[in-house]
């Protein structure tokens, strides 16, 4: 069970549950400049082809370039330049998104360089030559040559190259802390490691590929969105191409109408036709789509989570049920003394005094918390084990199931109820009936009772409580509003589990959970059509991790767990699952919002371009020129410039993701529709008018 980890190791002060919404990560203007060469390289049609919308723009730009050379004018060249800029801006967005991962990848590569593997049979080979199943010896100061499991020894390992966390961690053979990662450094002692990775597929290799965005697979929703965008592009292509015979017919009918930059006897000019097409097809979202995907992965990496596939990130946004381990995730991970409950006839102070004395040598978090409680509530200070002469401390053993102290004739014990009462009876005492009642009461409330006895007398009970992390209740409330059920997994008995579940505010709990129970629970949820996310670290979690739609393995966990899950949390913080869900949602919302924005923009562009094209042919159409743009040329150029610039303005948003606060679907839809739908209708009217005011000053427009 996963709780063993926390039972063994003091995980230290629990991190505050993060309350800030997902976001952050500003765009540095210098980054745009540095990414420019990469953006230009992406102009290669073989690369552009993968993005159909922008490929059309590039083809259009080539076409207008040819037309501009054949019949040069200020207008033709201005349009041509801005069409090329549109393509470059789109590539820039992708290049910037990729660039953010590059630095991280470079640092990781350094960790990989020139490592030598010392095989147990005495050979020395370069780390790159290691095969699965090889056994290597790593001594103090050496770099672990590949991913594997410790099969002999124990060592402290510096994993900062991967996790960024400078505090060393313990790795030892057997158990759930046996996994080591290639590229990390052994600080002390010596371990024997069996390599589990295939050559070239180490954790670091995968991480590099991931942060660089190399071989990025499109995710299911991205594919679906691409299809929709392609369909819209085809519709607009149709609308524009079929316009030409109609325009020729209309111009011939109004033969007296003057030729303009937009329309002449041959119909709409090639330059304007391309401009109209580029303005209508969803270039904004088309340009930013892949940047959004890369940036989404990057946001996970920044939080020290490695997703093995983009699919998993999207699935995280869809999660309906979160399985969370109680210990370390919902509660602080160790029980704390909350109250001293004396039996009738015993002073509370006397109980506190005895409890504190018995715990002075107890270094477990529970023991420390008893000492602290007695200090804080009863002023029992300045007692150190060393100051007490003739004190003999009795340590806890699995057989006696109690610990305590002998102070001359005072023999004090604390421990499990059955063990301590038995001990008191053995000393000739007759513990009161009341003890059983108190013990039951504490158990019922989800606490752990520790009975304290002095010689033959039971003094009372210490109430140890599982302390729910601050803020968790609110967090689960948020989850509920987002439509996500939280389920607490615990090894506790159902009574205890129910009490803690109620206190933490989770929707359901799974008590006395075995790995099989977990697996069955996940299957049951999935059969009901729900998507399940969970965290785990032990080998026995592996089947459940593999079954879950989103399985986040802790980096401290075993290789088996890491293989089974589809994400690894380098910080090994189970609470992060909640953040992962938010990042997944934010990724989808960003795509949806920018798609809406992109399509809503088209309305204003029509009001700019249609009167510009045809108002000279049919003067009545000038009524559509509600922006009162300067001239046909300036109107069309303004629309094209707006279309290009809006990409650059939205790059930061694409990288950062739209603002996301956990709330219900209706609230989210209303907000995003208002901001990106209505905003998308209004913004281009303002933007195009503004650009028109500037460019009408250019002679020749």
């Amino acid at each position, binding site marked *: 069970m996963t709780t063993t980890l926390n039972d063994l190791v003091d995980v230290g002060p629990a991190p505050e549950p993060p309350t800030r919404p997902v976001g952050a990560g500003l765009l540095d203007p210098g980054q745009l400049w540095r990414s420019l060469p990469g953006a230009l390289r992406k102009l290669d049609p073989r690369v552009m082809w993968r993005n159909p919308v922008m490929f059309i723009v590039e083809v259009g730009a080539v076409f207008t370039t040819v037309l501009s050379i054949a019949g040069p004018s200020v207008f033709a060249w201005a349009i041509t330049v801005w069409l090329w800029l549109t393509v470059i801006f789109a590539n820039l967005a992708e290049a910037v998104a990729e660039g953010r991962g590059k630095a991280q990848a470079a640092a990781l590569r350094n960790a990989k360089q020139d490592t030598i593997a010392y095989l147990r049979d005495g050979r020395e080979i370069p780390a790159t030559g290691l095969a699965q199943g090889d056994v290597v010896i790593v001594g103090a100061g050496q770099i672990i040559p590949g991913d594997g499991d410790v099969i002999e020894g124990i060592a402290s390992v510096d994993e900062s190259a991967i996790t960024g966390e400078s505090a060393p961690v313990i790795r030892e053979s057997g158990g759930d802390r046996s996994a080591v990662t290639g590229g990390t450094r052994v600080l002390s002692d010596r371990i024997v490691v069996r390599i589990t990775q295939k050559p070239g597929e180490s954790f670091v290799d995968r991480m590099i590929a991931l942060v660089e965005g190399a071989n990025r697979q499109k995710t*299911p*929703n991205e594919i*679906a969105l691409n299809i929709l965008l392609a369909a819209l592009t085809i519709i*607009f292509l149709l609308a524009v191409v079929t316009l030409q015979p109609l325009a020729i017919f209309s111009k011939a009918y109004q033969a007296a109408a003057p030729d303009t930059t937009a329309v002449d006897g041959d119909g709409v000019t090639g330059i304007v036709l391309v401009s109209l097409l580029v303005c209508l097809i969803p270039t904004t979202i088309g340009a930013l789509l892949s940047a959004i995907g890369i940036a989404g992965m990057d946001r996970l990496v920044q939080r020290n989570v490695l997703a093995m596939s983009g699919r998993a990130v999207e699935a995280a946004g869809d999660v*309906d049920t979160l399985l969370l381990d109680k210990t370390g995730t919902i509660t602080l991970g160790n029980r704390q003394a909350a109250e001293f409950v004396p039996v009738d006839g015993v002073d509370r102070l006397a109980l506190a005094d005895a409890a504190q004395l018995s715990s002075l040598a107890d270094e477990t978090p529970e023991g420390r918390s008893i000492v602290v409680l007695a200090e804080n509530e009863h002023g029992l200070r300045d007692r150190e084990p060393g100051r007490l002469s003739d004190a003999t401390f009795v340590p806890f053993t699995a057989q006696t199931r109690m610990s305590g102290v002998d102070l001359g004739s005072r023999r004090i014990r604390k421990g499990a109820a059955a063990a301590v009462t038995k001990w008191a009876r053995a000393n000739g005492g007759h513990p009161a009936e009341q003890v059983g009642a108190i013990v039951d009461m504490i158990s019922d409330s989800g606490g752990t009772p520790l009975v304290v006895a002095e010689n033959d007398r039971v003094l009372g009970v210490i109430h140890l409580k599982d302390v729910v992390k601050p803020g968790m209740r609110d967090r689960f409330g948020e989850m509920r*509003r987002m*439509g996500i059920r939280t389920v607490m997994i615990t090894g506790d008995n159902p009574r205890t589990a129910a009490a803690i579940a109620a206190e933490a505010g989770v929707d359901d709990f799974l008590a006395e959970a075995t790995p099989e129970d977990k697996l069955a629970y996940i299957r049951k949820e999935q059969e009901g059509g729900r998507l399940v996310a969970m965290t785990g670290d032990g080998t026995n979690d592996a089947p459940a991790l593999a079954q879950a739609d989103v399985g986040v393995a802790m980096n401290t966990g075993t290789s088996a767990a890491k293989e089974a899950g589809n994400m690894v949390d380098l910080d090994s913080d189970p609470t992060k699952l909640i953040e992962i869900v938010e990042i997944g949602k934010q990724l989808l919302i960003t795509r*949806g919002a920018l798609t809406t924005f992109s399509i809503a923009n088209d309305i204003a562009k029509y009001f700019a371009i249609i009167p510009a094209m045809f108002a000279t042919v*049919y003067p009545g159409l000038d009524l559509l020129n509600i922006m009162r743009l300067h001239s046909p040329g300036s109107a069309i150029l303004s629309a094209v410039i707006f279309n290009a610039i809006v990409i650059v303005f939205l790059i930061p948003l694409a990288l950062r993701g739209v603002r996301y606060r956990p709330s219900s679907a209706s609230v989210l839809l209303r907000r995003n529709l208002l901001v990106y*739908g209505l905003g998308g209708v209004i913004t281009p009217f303002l933007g195009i008018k503004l650009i028109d005011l500037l460019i009408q000053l250019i002679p020749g427009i």
Partner: protein
Amino acid sequence: MAGWLFPLTLAAALVAVYRPFGDHLYRVVTGARHHRIERGVYRLVGVDASTGQTWGVYARSVLAFSAVSVLFLYAFLRLQDRLWLSLGLPAVADHIAWNTAVSFVTNTNWQAYSGESTMGHLVQMAGLTVQNFVSASVGIAVAVVLMRGFAARGEKLLGNFWVDLTRITLRVLLPLSVLFALVFMVGGVVQNLSGGVDVTTLTGGAQHITGGPVASQEVIKELGTNGGGFYNANSAHPFENPTAWTNWLQVFLILLIPFSLPRVFGRMVGQNRQGYAIVAVMAILALGSIALTVGFETHGAGTVPQAVGAAMEGKETRFGVANSAAFAAATTLTSTGAVNSFHDSYTALGGMMPLVNMMLGEVAPGGVGSGLYGMLILAVITVFVAGLMVGRTPEYLGKRIQAREIKLASLYFLVTPLVVLVGTAAAFATGNAATALNAGPHGLSEVLYAFTSAGNNNGSAFAGITVNTRWWDTALGLAMLFGRFLPMILVLALAGSLARQRPAPASDGTLPTHQPLFVGMVAGVTVVLVALTFLPALALGPLAEGLR
């Protein structure tokens, strides 16, 4: 004010029948029992009524049935001079026969001919009227399959085409047609097998007064959103539509099934509110369109309307401006295409509205069946964009809208603009647009209208254009064929794809598809998509003419 009475009483009547009639339709398409007559039909055709079909088999059945129908009708028209009751009329010319056969099988009822001078009574009754029934049933059946797809929980079988076809025809369309044919006869619609009588008029001129089985064809013309009139003048002819109240009833019959099908959808998916949401989108668009059409016609600018006080050109005095405009809106909002006035004579913007109604894809409420599946496809597209905006893989009624679903829905959307725009452009590029009576923007509207009507299977004509040439008959025939069956195949494929999925339960994180916000969004998406696709063409037609 009296002009508004017409749409308001209609709306009230449709609200009243929504539940009872929708529930009746639901029972027809879900009932387990077969009537004796139906069992007889199944035995005759050789169908095992108890077996279900996958979407592929269903689609093949639809196509096979329709192909046989086209061939049969074509042969019928070509051989009419050798059959009874031909009234001495010759065989129909090959290109007109092709166009008409396709037109009636596709529920379009575009008429490249003049009924009273081209078709004998037998062809009208056994050829055209039969197709009026079964083509309507095919449309409803396909819509029902899509509903079954949404309601399914992982099944593959989506019902049996032959059962759906038989039941919808025998239990819904036929009884209502018999009933309302009698009502129409009371109203003065003719019903006989006479070849007509020759009379001498008061002024001494000779006139041929036609007869025929009109009432029996009239009801299904409206009820099945067919629109093919017995006479060339269609519902403007006093023998088809004699009085103001028969006019009201005709519009009511046009809207009856399309506006009730959302009820079937709601019941099928087990949430009536989903049906209300869909019918609300239809109602918003329909009311908006009717208001605009009536508004443009009653307040329309123009020399003649201002001189005589109303835009009465091309309208019947017994209906008036408002009721004619409302009829025009209803007939194009559905895929009916019957007319009681001449759209060509409307004010420029008033005439644009029927065009826009059809360009919406005829979804408000649309043709029988086709309107609902068109609207559900729009809802799927809306769900996709809106679903992303709430941060989940989009789901509609628990079914995930992913690559395959979006591919099918997008292709559905490509078909109509492709047919309409390519057809219109081709007419101009090849010079065939020259058969339009008018030059300039009005002529452009006439050509655009012809392809919009054919591509959307409406069948109404703007008129003012000669379309019974070989080129037009062939081109419009193809437009009708593609405009009907490509979308149907895509809808059936979508139904199959949805049916395979087990629905995911709804939660607070799921996009609610029954709330006003979503209703407004679907309406908005419909209008914006159409505006973006057709605005350039409209700008050179009715907008150029109407904006001054």
